[in-house]
């Protein structure tokens, strides 16, 4: 019998690119949390990689959604355990994200800056390694290659 997450957890996967305004709004929402002294943010942006077949003009993301949300949740729990964080938010795009648009937004906050960069790095690396998100790198002419994290 599959274990269900008892607490209502916010979904990480969102449709489409993450707009810059959303990032600004997230920062604004934390202004009332006055025990916070430091924030660190990671933004993953789709890069126009060059291949012999052409230049990437977008990545189309798909995911094993149930397992991905579970993996994101576990990464969150591990980060809260390892680091002194007040707050953490993760958003990852599904669907088409054009070159230059944001596909991943990780936002961590803490009373002090010590350990914060490390926490962010831990989360980003864990996401790349553990979360079943898949990507098709799309070329202008309709051809594509499947993306593989290094």
């Amino acid at each position, binding site marked *: 019998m599959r274990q269900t997450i008892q607490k209502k957890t916010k979904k990480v996967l969102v449709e489409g690119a993450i707009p810059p305004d959303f990032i600004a709004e997230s920062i604004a929402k934390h202004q009332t949390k006055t025990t916070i002294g430091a924030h660190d943010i990671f933004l993953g942006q789709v890069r126009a990689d060059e291949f012999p077949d052409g230049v990437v003009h977008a990545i189309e*993301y798909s995911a094993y959604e149930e397992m991905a949300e579970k993996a994101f949740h576990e990464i969150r729990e591990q980060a809260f355990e390892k680091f002194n964080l007040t707050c953490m938010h993760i958003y990852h795009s599904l669907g088409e994200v054009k070159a230059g648009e944001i596909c991943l937004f990780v936002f961590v906050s803490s009373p002090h800056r010590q350990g914060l960069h490390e926490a962010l790095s831990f989360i980003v690396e864990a996401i*790349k390694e553990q979360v079943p*998100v898949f990507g098709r790198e799309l070329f202008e002419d309709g051809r594509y290659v499947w993306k593989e994290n290094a």
Partner: protein
Amino acid sequence: MIRLKYFGMIAENTGKQTELVDFEENVTVEKLKHFLEERYEGLEGLTYKVAVELELIHDETALIPKDAEVALLPAFAGG
């Protein structure tokens, strides 16, 4: 019945995203892989991981519970 899910390049190879397979007894991950690789040409040459009930499998001798959901996962590309 084992509920299979395919993603990315694996779904392209099998031509489907999901299917049900039935075995008389519980099978190991290894046995299921062999079964699928015989059914789908080219699957053997692809790199993929197996998840059973949302957990990645590291030991392929593990038995798959009856009625489990099993996913074949190609390379991750998150972030």
